[in-house]
C-alpha cells in the first residue's frame, strides 16, 4: 500500500490519503489530473472496477466534490478518489472512455448538479426528470419548498405539530393540566 501511495503522490500529486476502515481508503487529486490518475489506477494499480461516481455540493466552500469509488478485486480494496471543482465553473473531464458505464453517472450529475462532462454520451438528455425547467435541483441553494409552493396547488388547512408534544397531549391529557 505504501508504494501505491507514493507513486500516486509522485505521478499525480495525490494527497490526503486516509484509511477509512480495513479495505477502504480515500484520497484527493486535483481535477486537472483526475482522468489520468484514474486511468493509471485502472491499468497499472488493479483498481479496474468503477463502483460509482457521485458529487457533493459544498456550498460553503463554493466547490463540488466529485467522488469516484474504485475497487481492486484482487486485493479486496476500495479507493474513493475525491476531486474538487469550482461551483461557478462546473466542468470536468469525462471518464466514459475508461469505464463505459460512467456516462450514466455523468448524465445524472449533469441533471442534478449542473456539472458538465463535455463529450460524454447523451449528457444533455433528461435523466430522471421530465420537462424540468428549474435549476439543477440537488444544488443546495435550490429552495425545494419555495419551488413546491409556487408550482403545486395546495389543499388549505394543513397543519403540523411536533410528534412528541402531540402524543403527550393525546395519550396523557391529565399531565397537561
Amino acid at each position: 500500500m505504501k508504494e501505491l501511495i507514493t507513486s500516486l503522490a509522485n505521478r499525480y500529486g495525490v494527497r490526503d490519503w486516509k484509511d477509512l476502515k480495513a479495505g477502504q481508503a480515500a484520497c484527493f487529486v486535483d481535477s486537472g489530473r483526475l482522468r489520468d490518475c484514474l486511468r493509471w489506477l485502472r491499468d497499472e494499480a488493479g483498481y479496474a472496477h468503477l463502483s460509482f461516481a457521485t458529487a457533493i455540493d459544498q456550498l460553503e466552500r463554493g466547490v463540488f466534490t466529485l467522488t469516484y469509488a474504485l475497487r481492486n478485486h484482487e486485493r479486496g480494496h476500495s479507493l474513493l478518489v475525491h476531486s474538487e471543482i469550482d461551483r461557478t465553473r462546473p466542468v470536468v473531464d469525462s471518464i466514459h472512455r475508461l469505464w463505459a458505464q460512467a456516462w450514466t453517472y455523468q448524465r445524472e450529475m449533469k441533471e442534478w448538479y449542473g456539472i458538465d462532462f463535455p463529450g460524454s454520451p447523451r449528457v444533455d438528455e433528461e435523466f430522471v426528470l421530465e420537462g424540468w425547467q428549474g435549476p439543477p435541483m440537488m444544488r443546495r441553494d435550490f429552495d425545494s419548498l419555495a419551488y413546491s409552493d409556487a408550482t403545486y396547488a395546495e389543499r388549505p388547512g394543513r397543519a403540523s405539530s411536533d410528534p412528541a408534544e402531540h402524543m403527550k397531549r393525546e395519550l396523557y391529557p391529565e399531565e397537561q393540566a
Partner: protein
Amino acid sequence: MSDKHSIPGPLANEGLPLAERGLFCDAPPRQYQRANKITEAFWNWARAQSLWILGFGTGCGAIELRPLMTSRFDMYRYGIQPRPTPRQSSVFVIGGYASVKTLKRIVRSYEQMMGPKFVVALGSCTINGGMYWDSYNTIKRIDQYIPVDVYIAGCMPRPEALLAGFQELKRIIRAGRGEGQNEYARKFEWYKANQKQVIKDWNMPDYNW
C-alpha cells in the same frame, strides 16, 4: 347524470408534431347519457358489484394492494379485481404520492379508461401532499388533475381501510353519485390547464382516448 348536452369544439393537440395531429382524437370527453331510472339503477348495482381496478401502482400505496389481493384480505370476494389495461378497468387506485412524471401517466391512463370510471385515492400524499409537502417534483393534491370519488386517509392506510373505502365507493355508485367522469367532462378545460401547468413537456394528445 348529464344536465346539458353541449358539443364542445375540437381540441388543438398542440403538444403533438403537426404531422401527427391528424392521427389522434380531437374530441373532448362527453358526459355520460343516463338511461331511464330503473335501467340505470340496475346498471349501477351491477357496476358496484364488479370493480375492476387498473393494475397501475403509483406511489407506496401499490404495496398495500398485495395483501388485499391475497388470501388474508381477499378482495375478490367483494367483486374487486385488478385488470392489466385501462380499457378493461373501471376503478383507478392512486396509490399515494404522484411525481410529475407519474402524473403524466396517470392522466393518460385515466383518460383511456372506459366510462363509467371511478377514482380511489389512498394516502395523505394524494390528499395534501403528505410527507412530500416540500418536494420539488411531487404534486400535493391529486384532485386538481383528475376527479376523485373516495379518499382513504393514512400513511399507509391498512388493507381494512382500503376495504372500507371500496365499500364506500360501492355505496356511491349504487346511489348514482359516481360523478367523476362527468365532472371531468364538465370541467375539462380547468383540469387540462392544471395538468399542463405542471407537466411542462406536454407531448401527447389533449385527450388521450
